[in-house]
């Protein structure tokens, strides 16, 4: 099953469960119905906030490898010197 198909199945299942319950399949008390009805919207908004927070956190903690850059620079000098000694014409 492709990822798309999995998503569609999951949405169909959850969607029909939600529709059934809000339309009265299980005779839920009105207070439950009141919470259930806007649930998809709440889930969407929460998912959006979670996504933003996660990406924000990951950008903020993205390692800046200054040491690696410095090390590379000095190795480049070393490499050029060694290669010239061995006969490399740049």
């Amino acid at each position: 099953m492709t990822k798309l198909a999995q998503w569609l199945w999951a949405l169909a299942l959850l969607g029909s469960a939600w529709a059934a319950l809000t339309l009265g399949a299980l005779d839920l008390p009105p207070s439950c119905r009141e919470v259930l009805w806007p649930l998809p919207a709440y889930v969407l908004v929460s998912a959006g906030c979670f996504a933003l927070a996660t990406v924000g956190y990951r950008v903020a903690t993205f390692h800046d490898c200054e040491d690696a850059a410095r090390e590379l620079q000095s190795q480049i000098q070393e490499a050029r010197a060694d290669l010239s000694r061995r006969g490399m014409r740049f």
Partner: protein
Amino acid sequence: MASKTANRTPPRSRREPEGRFPGPDKYSVLLPTYNERENLPLIVWLLVKSFSESGINYEIIIIDDGSPDGTREVAEQLEKIYGSDKILLRPREKKLGLGTAYIHGMKHATGNYIIIMDADLSHHPKFIPEFIRKQKEGNFDIVSGTRYKGNGGVYGWDLKRKLISRGANFITQILLRPGASDLTGSFRLYRKEVLQKLIEKCVSKGYVFQMEMIVRARQLNYTIGEVPITFVDRVYGESKLGGNEIVSFLKGLLTLFATT
């Protein structure tokens, strides 16, 4: 020979090479190049240094796509310096794309493991012994370098670039649940037969090609290990990540989403 499940671990990694297995492991590095006259000697020098210091049996296969800047001449000098058993020149007439470069390179590879990496010094060969160690530790089919975990990271990216990178990776993880943290990275170690199998199956190009390899690998139940790497981007200043690249990335991602 490719281990399909993690259970199938005859303690291959713990046996001496002189045991029943026909000889030590050899690692073939595939270096597709296009206009890398400046960087090629440096990357080769770093590769030779890393391999020699760790006593690893290796070869470097340079696949130049007819670079007009003299990359080929530089490669020939390197072959003279280091020997044609270590530096193999297998050039092509013109720029033909990464997937076919790998196929072409593998035809000439005598190693049982293949390492793919960029030739522009963004990937540092010092991580290769770590890839090898990781591969033996878990008997993995693939070891992928990741910029996003552990003490992996990047140098030379501004906020915008980091945002795009993390954002794209987030969407990819949600949609594809690939089991690897860095999908667009191209610094990887593969068992030779695994790489051959995957290339046969992959149809996309560019960034998406690298992503598709990991996704297909998961489909085929290959095991993937990860090693944090540092990515030193010296090129970003010149080649901005443009709208076109982002669009084609998204198209590729959605295609993988819908077809795998």
